């Protein structure tokens, strides 16, 4: 379903001829979205047109035109995943690729102001030049800084020391679905970007809540995010050691260690204590399959897996990184780490202290540049399950539930045998929060496999309700319209509040409600 020529021309007058298209080839390329598609790579619904605004003013005008003509719009930044596309016919996509500037890095107050298309890798290199660093989400540094801060989840393993995207959010410039511009926090009083709350009641909960509105509440055109101290060199030089880019020089006072534990409970206890001690830069509980796929591909991986070595070595293991500012601090961190590992029955992997280990992990830890290897690469299709961020105990329960459910589908042969427990568990804010995703890999072009994967996900979602494991990340957005209603009653009827928020902020339902909520009826 297209839009009328008159409306098209109105949009065109805003963004210019070069930056709007409803050509079938352009639209088809946007429909390619394997992540979240039930099967294959194509979305069922095409945008009616794609617009590429370059400024807040252009976004405002587009929103107003949409309201005037009852056209739904949906914005995307880097556009990874089907949730970036409109879920209704006749809607327009706003590709924010042209809004790609780092507007400011405030070294003294340790924050950066970015537009939607700035990716973590870009911000990180610019921040490092000033002795600062930024949080990078687990999906990788190819993702938008702003999107995860304002609109979607935002967790990553450096969150142990650098929080998560939603928490790191400061001032925000927000174009409401109606076209009105709202400035959040200190920005609203002309006091700059340094604070995301007040004066008076904060709007952050409404704007983002736990995991964001997934584009269902308008367009975030600028935001400020916290930056963190970086004690390393201002530029990280790489050398090529196939198949990896590894650091040319080791970073001073930086050490990655890989620890194994006899039980999951021991691992959790260690993570808790390490959090309390506040000594870590990065922690990630990585499954044997995830680790193996980082190191090898194809037959090499299969051969390693079939030896059982990976499973034996890393059944309950995490990667822990310390990163100090001085030699004295480095010694202290190492001593505390060793004591906690001993107390909790952990053992350093034999490769833990080797140069290879330090080299192989440093880029993946600091730059989060190789996630694809352990997600989409082995089977093509990839999805995730669980993911409510809560306590370490809840994370353990999510792992247990997910493993049990996944094993059922592994036995059927419809998803990849990754040992069942392919959970990526991280601890945020020095142990105050924990987060687990249970990854699932499948062949999205194989009917039986795709169906099996989604049956697993449906069962995992149901387990979240039945076993009180929290609302699952991504599933709320992927399962679409009305699904908040499934999880809402188990979570203080939050779905009703989303409807109220949507009604108040988007009376015409102009911002695509599919991954968020429709207004109150």
């Amino acid at each position, binding site marked *: 379903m297209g839009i009328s020529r008159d409306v098209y021309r109105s949009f065109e007058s805003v963004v210019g001829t070069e930056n709007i298209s409803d050509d079938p080839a352009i639209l088809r390329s946007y429909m390619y979205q394997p992540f979240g598609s039930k099967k294959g790579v194509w979305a069922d619904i095409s945008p009616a047109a794609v617009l590429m605004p370059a400024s807040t003013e252009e976004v405002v005008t587009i929103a107003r035109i949409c309201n005037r003509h009852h056209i739904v719009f949906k914005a995307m930044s880097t556009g990874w995943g089907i949730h970036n596309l409109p879920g209704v016919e006749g809607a327009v996509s706003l590709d924010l*690729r042209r809004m790609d500037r780092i507007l400011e890095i405030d070294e003294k107050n340790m924050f950066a102001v970015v537009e939607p298309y700035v990716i973590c890798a870009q911000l990180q290199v610019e921040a490092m030049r000033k002795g600062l660093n930024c949080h990078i989400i687990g999906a990788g540094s*190819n993702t938008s800084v702003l999107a995860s801060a304002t609109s979607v989840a935002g967790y990553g393993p450096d969150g142990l020391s650098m929080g998560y995207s939603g928490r790191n959010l400061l001032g925000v410039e927000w174009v409401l679905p109606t076209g009105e511009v709202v400035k959040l926090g200190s920005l609203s009083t002309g006091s700059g970007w340094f604070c995301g709350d007040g004066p008076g009641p904060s709007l952050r909960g409404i704007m983002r809540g736990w995991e964001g509105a997934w584009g269902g509440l308008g367009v975030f055109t600028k935001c400020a995010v916290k930056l963190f101290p970086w004690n390393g060199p201002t530029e990280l030089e790489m050398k090529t050691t196939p198949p990896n*880019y590894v650091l040319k020089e080791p970073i001073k006072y930086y050490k990655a260690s890989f620890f194994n534990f006899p039980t999951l409970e021991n691992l959790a206890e260690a993570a808790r204590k390490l959090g309390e001690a506040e000594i870590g830069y990065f922690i990630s509980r990585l499954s044997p399959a995830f680790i193996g796929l980082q190191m090898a591909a194809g*037959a090499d991986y299969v051969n390693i897996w079939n030896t059982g070595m990976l499973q034996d070595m890393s059944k309950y293991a995490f990667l822990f990184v310390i990163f100090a500012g001085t030699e004295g601090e480095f010694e202290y961190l190492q001593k505390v780490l060793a004591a906690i590992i001993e107390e909790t029955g952990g053992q350093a992997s034999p490769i833990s202290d080797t140069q290879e280990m330090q080299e192989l992990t440093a880029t993946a830890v600091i730059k989060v540049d190789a996630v694809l290897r352990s997600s989409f*690469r082995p089977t093509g299709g990839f999805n995730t399950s669980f993911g409510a961020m809560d306590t370490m105990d809840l994370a353990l329960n999510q792992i247990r539930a997910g493993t049990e459910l996944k094993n059922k589908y592994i036995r059927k042969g419809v998803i990849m045998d990754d040992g069942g427990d392919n959970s990526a568990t991280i601890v945020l804010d020095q142990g105050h929060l924990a987060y687990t995703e249970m990854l699932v890999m499948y062949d999205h072009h194989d009917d039986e496999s795709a169906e099996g994967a989604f049956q697993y996900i449906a069962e995992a979602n149901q387990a979240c309700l039945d076993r009180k494991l929290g609302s699952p990340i991504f599933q709320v957005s992927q399962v679409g319209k009305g699904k908040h209603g499934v999880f809402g009653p188990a979570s203080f009827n939050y779905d009703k509040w989303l409807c109220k928020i949507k009604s108040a902020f988007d009376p015409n339902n102009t911002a695509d409600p599919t991954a968020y909520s429709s207004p109150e009826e």
Partner: protein
Amino acid sequence: MLLDLKDYMSDMKGCARCSLCKWPPLAQIKSWRFSNTCPSITRYNFHAYSGGGRLALGLALAEGKLEDISDELLNIVYHCTACGACDSSCKYNSELEVLWPIYSTRAHLISMGYFLPEHSMILDSLRKEDNTLMKPKADRGKWADGLEVKDLSRGEHAGVVYHAGCQYCYDPELSITARETVTLLQKAGVDVGIRGSQESCCGGMAFQLGFQGEFIKFAESNIDDWHAAGVSTVVTSCACCFGIMKSVYPLLGKEMKFEVLHITQYLDKLIKEGKIRLNREIPSRVTYHDPCNLGRKSEIYIPWKGTEKKVLGQFILREPEKVIHRGWNGVYEPPRDIIKSIPGIKLVEMERIKEYSWCCGAGAGVKQCFDDFALWTASERIAEAKSVGAEAIVTACPWCERNFKDAIATSGDAMPVYDVVELVKQSM
């Protein structure tokens, strides 16, 4: 057929849509300003103009999901220098082919009868005049007028044939480099000859535009001619010729009883053997631009033909194992070693180099068909060169050199652009 979309179905279906094709490998990003890798998506912005977008369109074509072939589709397909940067970036994390499906999409469209009018002119020129520049074949050897050099097309014999390539043959400003190259080789005692007016296009542009029949004709003819001349080595100064001879010619299944070398490899060897001595100081701070076809695209391409089987439930295992072309084995050090061996020269590297080098903008017919895009792409590279304080850009391909010179002239700038050979000559 060398180019068949069907051969790349699993690659086109396997893209994760992660956008890694839009940036250099993430670990190699050094600044916001120079953090793009694909000229096409950087200039035109719609996702379709990226490596991933082109895979999507290739798949849509193969699956019959694009009913009409629009002008915009042709724009997308051909506003791409086929530089292969998307391919290298993608393969840092995956084993997907990106560049060859791009070539194959072009071949597919051609098989349906779709290509640009400008391409017809290039093709006509190839068919009638054996070059891509719409110049008379009879003039092809004029660059060597007055040179005392063996002409192998007239029955003379030499161990090495110097293949000048279309651009050096017909661009009067650049052909001096070809002359200097021959002189240099002769002074170093190399038994070198040329093929004069009988030299033909390497076929590289035809291949990159998707005209695979034409490519095969030129490639086979060149191989036959060099065999007939009895040469043991083919040396070229053109990175585009080198790249295609090195990476694609071997796929034709014809025996190649000669070695293919780029002039930088040959000169580097001669310098290291002491047969060329560089004595004269050239006090200058220069940067080196890696031509795509000398770098990441010169790896010998081994297409994967095999079966995919499922193990560990749904793990897709390719049998036989696929050879991954990450662009890491291109010709990167010889030109740098030559530059560094010149007294007085300080080589400074740009941010995007080697397998993640930014393209000059001239490749795959873009210079002839969309000069504005070619010049814009070059201007980005020139800005990068300036950002590291370079006083001059050195490269090793006449297409890069031509495009940089044009972009600099268009902008009213004065930054010198040199071929490596020019510097060697000046330093002797």
